[in-house]
Each structure stands twice: as structure tokens, then as C-alpha cells.
């Protein structure tokens, strides 16, 4: 333990406020639930959850396993990063594999090749199989309009469904985690963070991220106004021209529907500057799954999606 005596300044930075709030939420879950789990994709928001959990329980180890819903359409860098994080923090990794479901026929591939909507069933099965009663997600309310109405403790039915009309009022910082057998609670410690807060915090805390968040050269092709990378998920199709560009990713998801943005930002400072200047939300810029309809996220949440 270091011995520097650091009095907290009276005027607290908003990152300290957000960190304290997130740590408080995680400790409430540790105190009130039997079998919590952190959803971990290797993306920046889930990496933030692991980092915050590490700080919340130090010097004890993180008291939760992590669950990765693996679409089979991964970026190699992200899987390597996931395994390194699991190793570094001594975590238990649970994997729910969409590929397994496709291989044995429980799920079938969609015509458009996108596997994001297919994640819900393996996710809910994994929650049921491991009897998880609290499931941490990295969702933020600034991401999307349906998420803006999400609670920090969000009750899910035995079918994993989100019922907006049954949401509990959330008062002060008193979280109500009571649920019936079979139901579970999704917990969103980053609810009040914005994309910019996340990046500022990553910079302040020197948090490692997969390299695809930073600008690199990559073979890409254009589809639906986004730059998708070539890969086993079905692309490029005929007529989709592959070109080499300098790009980076703002979100990490299924390779079939996560677009890269043109960027020269190779360092955290440059990424931060870019986020400050951006005129597009991170989901609008890079997620085909949210463009399916006006209420795409609302519908997926009702089915039990992240």
C-alpha cells in the first residue's frame, strides 16, 4: 500500500463523483446478491466495470466472475485482450457461445449475417444455468433513447424481459434488488456516465483497451454508410469494394455489424479530442443493429438483451 496522504479537495471533479457512485452500486450488489456476474465483452465499457470492481474491493480480489457472450464474429485482438484481463485480475471466465447454438441448431443464422440479435438466448441461458441473480452491464443512459429510461437496478422477469411499465421508482441511492426466484436484476453502474466521461476516466486511470480503439490501417468495405471489416461474417459481398483505410472503432461488438470510423487518432489524447468534436453518437455512427427501426433497442431490451 502506498503511503501518500491525499486529502480530497473540496471541489470534487465529476469523475470522482461518478466513480464513487459506481463503486457504491457495485458494493451494494456484493452485499445483497448471492451470484452476481459482470458481462464482459472486452469493450471499453465492460473494461471500465472490471477496473471499477478492482478498485471497489481492493485489496481483496474482484468477487464476481465475468461472462462473455461470444458471437463467434470476434476481432482477434479483442479475444486476446479478454484473456489477458482475465489472467491479470484472476477472474473466472464464463463463455456463452452463439456458434454452439448455431452448430446444434438451437439458433439459425440470420439472412443478413448479423449475430447481435442472436446473443439474447445464449445470454439468458447462461444467466439461468449459472443461477446469476445480478448481472452487471456497461450500458449508459446517454447511449440511446430507450436506455435513457433505464434504472440502475433493472428488474428482469423469469423470461429475461424488461417491462418498462413495471420499473421500480429509484429513490436517493437506496437500490431495491428484491426479486422472485428465477428473476434477476440487471445492474448498470455506468448509468450516469457519458461517452466523454468514459474516455476522460480511461485517460486518468491509464486503463488498457484493445488496440482497435486506436487508429490503425485495415481492409474495409462500405455497407449502410459504415466501414465494415472483411471477415468470416459475410463480407465483402459482390460489388462491395475492399479498400485500405486508417480507422478506429468507437464500440466493440459483433464484427458483422460494428463499423469503424475514419480516424487518425492513435493516442488517448487524440481519441479524446475526437470524441469532443464528434457530431454523431457512438451507436449512431457504428452500430447497424440500432438502425433496424426507431425502437430497435427498446424491442431488444424487452426480449432480454443487454
Amino acid at each position, binding site marked *: *500500500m*502506498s*503511503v501518500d*496522504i*491525499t*486529502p*480530497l479537495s473540496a*471541489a*470534487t*471533479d*465529476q469523475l*470522482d*463523483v*461518478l*466513480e*464513487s457512485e459506481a*463503486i*457504491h452500486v457495485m*458494493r*451494494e450488489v*456484493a*452485499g445483497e446478491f448471492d451470484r452476481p456476474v459482470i458481462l464482459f465483452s472486452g469493450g471499453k465499457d465492460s473494461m471500465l466495470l472490471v477496473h471499477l470492481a478492482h*478498485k*471497489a*474491493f*481492493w*485489496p*481483496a*480480489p474482484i468477487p464476481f466472475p465475468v461472462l462473455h457472450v461470444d458471437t463467434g464474429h470476434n476481432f482477434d485482438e479483442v479475444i486476446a485482450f479478454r484473456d489477458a484481463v482475465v489472467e491479470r485480475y484472476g477472474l473466472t471466465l464464463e463463455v456463452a457461445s452463439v456458434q454452439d447454438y448455431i452448430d446444434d441448431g438451437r439458433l439459425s443464422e440470420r439472412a443478413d449475417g448479423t449475430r447481435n440479435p442472436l446473443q439474447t438466448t445464449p445470454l439468458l441461458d447462461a444467466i439461468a444455468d449459472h443461477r446469476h441473480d445480478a448481472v452487471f452491464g456497461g450500458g449508459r*443512459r*446517454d447511449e440511446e*433513447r*430507450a*436506455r*435513457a*429510461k433505464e434504472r440502475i437496478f433493472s*428488474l428482469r422477469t423469469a423470461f429475461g424481459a424488461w417491462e*418498462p411499465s413495471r420499473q*421500480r*421508482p*429509484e*429513490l*436517493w*441511492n*437506496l437500490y*431495491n434488488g*428484491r*426479486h*422472485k426466484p428465477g428473476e434477476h436484476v440487471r445492474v448498470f453502474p455506468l*448509468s*450516469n456516465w*457519458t461517452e*466523454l*466521461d468514459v474516455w476522460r476516466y480511461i485517460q486518468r486511470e491509464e486503463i488498457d483497451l484493445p488496440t482497435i480503439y486506436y487508429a490503425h490501417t485495415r481492409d474495409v468495405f462500405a455497407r449502410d454508410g459504415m466501414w465494415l471489416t472483411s471477415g468470416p461474417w459475410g463480407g465483402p459481398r459482390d460489388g462491395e469494394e475492399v479498400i485500405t483505410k486508417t480507422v478506429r472503432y468507437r464500440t466493440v461488438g459483433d464484427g458483422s455489424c460494428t463499423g469503424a470510423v475514419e480516424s487518425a487518432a492513435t493516442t488517448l489524447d487524440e481519441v479524446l479530442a475526437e470524441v469532443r468534436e*464528434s457530431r*454523431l453518437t457512438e451507436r*449512431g455512427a457504428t452500430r447497424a443493429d440500432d438502425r433496424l427501426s*426507431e*425502437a430497435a433497442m*427498446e424491442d431488444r431490451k424487452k426480449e432480454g438483451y443487454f
Partner: protein
Amino acid sequence: MTDLLRLATAGSVDDGKSTLVGRLLYDTKSVLADQLEAVERASKSADGEPDLSLLVDGLRSEREQGITIDVAYRYFATPTRSFVLADTPGHVQYTRNTVTGASTAQLAVLLVDARHGVVEQTRRHAAVMALLRVPRLVLAVNKIDLVDYDEATYLTIAKEFRDHTTALGYSEDAVVTIPVSAKKGDNVVLESERTPWYDGPTLLDHLESVPVDGPDDTAPFRFPVQTVIRPRSAEYPDYRGYAGLVAAGSVSVGDSVVVLPDGQRTTVEGIDRYTSSLSSASAGDSVVLRLADDLGIARGAVLVATSSAPEPVTEFTATLAWLHEKPLTPGRRLLVKHGTHTVQAMITAVEDRLDIQTLALDADPGTLEINDIGHVAITVAEPLPLDDYDTVAATGSFLVIDPQAGDTLAAGLVGRPLVTTPVDA
């Protein structure tokens, strides 16, 4: 470094609250291009201007009905300050959401339609803000364009609102009134030339400059223990720390504290925030306290300052805001969650119910129904170290929970924090 202001908005049906929030986001350039395109695609506005309310109505059923059902949280920032805005719906049946938004707000913006002035919902919302001790209020007199920017109309509404908030205990300088048109943008972010008689700040100017009332670090020290950190590792074989969020006041290394409800005394030996050792911590900080003695403390205990330790009680009076469709049944078994401790409880009597219009108290109502506010007598199965809500809000608040369904039934405030002078309706 920037600071953070948490605010709530409330208004009655059709007074343009979603449009006002949309305007704040739009004029502070917090609306990104893809969101605006989505609004322009969906916009049904007849006069060709984008319907800014569509920026904030999140659920499909809301867009279909053209109303806001649930609390939505919005984020915007200016170079000096970041804002978390709880946008709460106006319909009577959704007043529970106003309570929710108010519980974390440092400031509330209430809206009225300049053509209708202060209505019952305005009075109800102001009473809820006063009850929950939201420190500051703003009245946005909206649709000022529809009364031809008439000063006399504005002044009449402003005075009526001030009379009401004064009766609720607000001081003069805690309340600001502003004439705005959310649709046209007058005095929301940009100063209006059409209200030359108004020389106060725009809404955003006020939000950027108003002092932020943070958690009360001058209050007596309160620390509900969330979990015990005991690694038992080779590196830290004997480490034992009590993790929690400082709910009120501050604590320094060397302070003596009392562990409630049991009453043992000990001394704070160390304050850890991750790997840093701090000399002190104050309200709002998530920290780990190490104590001089091993007292077998577990989740649910509250560490408090020796000089101001509350006496744990099993019977007390509280103010409840009833939030659930299922009305209160005196004598039923319930749960009370106070801090990190959940105990069995029973409401033994409903003493009175607040008439939100006149602020008078109706005695012996027998029950409380959804949206009712009233005073009750509660008995709990284990002693709780309570503070009056108006002394220490963080340890004077609790939830009433249905033990079977798990639903949150009521927001509870210890004591009778709403001081009112009845007014003529």
C-alpha cells in the same frame, strides 16, 4: 476540472416540458447529427420546425401517445459544467416519477403554460420538491410567445408561484422565475429580445452559475457499512476494512466513532480509497475505513460521530410518499430499507394525509393511495439508527418494500419534514 449539477424537471401535461428539454439539448449542441436526423425523419410538426420533444420521448408507446411516461435521464455539458437531468412526466398518475427525480436533484425546474398559470400540478410538484428538500427551484413560465410576451401575465404567475413556495418554506433567493418559449428558444439558452422587460438570466445562464449544493459535509458523520473487505491473502493476511459511501458529514483518521445499533466505540485507524491512504473523507466519497478494534461489524451497521449518535429506535413517525397502485393497508407485514439495512416493518397508523392543493392535513384517512403524501406511525423489528430527514436526509430516508412482490411501495422520510403554512387554493 468541471463540476456536476443534478436537476429534475417537472410540469403538467402539454406545457412543453419535453420541448424545453429538447431545446436545452439542441441549443447547447448536445444533440448529435444522427439524433437530429431521426427527429427530422419522425417530426410531425406542422410549421416545419423540428419537433424537439421527439429528442427526449424514448419509448415507442410514448411517441405513439405523444406523452412522456417514465423518468428519462439526459446529459449535457457546457464548458463550465456537466448536467444530469431527470426529466419527469407530468400526468397525475406519474407523480411517483417526480418523487424519484426529486430525490437526487440539487435543483428543480418546474414548468407552467403562460396561458394557464400555476395549476394544481404545479402546486403538487412544488410540494414534492419541498418535501424532499430539493434546495433550489426554477419556475419556467413557458409559451410566453402565446401571451404576446406580456409582462403583466408573467408577473402575476411569478408572484402566485412565489407565494406558494414561501408557504412551503423556500427562501426568496432559492427560487428564480424565468419567462421562456421552449419552441422559439426565448430565454432558454439565448437571451430574448422579445422580453425587454425581463433582465434576469436565461435558464442555461442560471443553471451554469447557480451554486451546486453537494452532499452535506457539515452534517454529523454517517457511514452505513456496505460490505466487509477481508482478503486473507498472503500479501494482506490481516487486512479488515469496512466499505461504504460517506452518507453525511466527514471523517478523519483518529476520529472516534460509535457503531450502531450496538453502540460500541472505536477509533478510525485508516481511510483507504483504493491504494491511497487518505487523511479524511467526506459526504459522497466511496472509501474503506479501517478501525482500531475488531468488533464483528457486518453490512447494515452504521458508523457515526461519537458526538452526535442517534438513539436507535423501533417505533417512529415518518412521512410517506405512496408510489404504488396497491394502497397502504395498516398492519400488513412490510420491509423497510434504511441505508444498507433491510428490516421487517409494520405501519400501525395513518395519522393524516396532505391536501396537496391547500397544504392542509386531513386527519385519519385510513389509508394512503398512489401519489398520496401522509404521516404514519411505523414499528420495525430491529432498532434503526434514524435521523430526521430535515437534519440528515441521507440517513433520514428509507424505502417501504412489499416483501412478496419485491416492489417499492413508498418513499419514506423520517419525521415531518414538510413545514407548510396552509394557503387559499
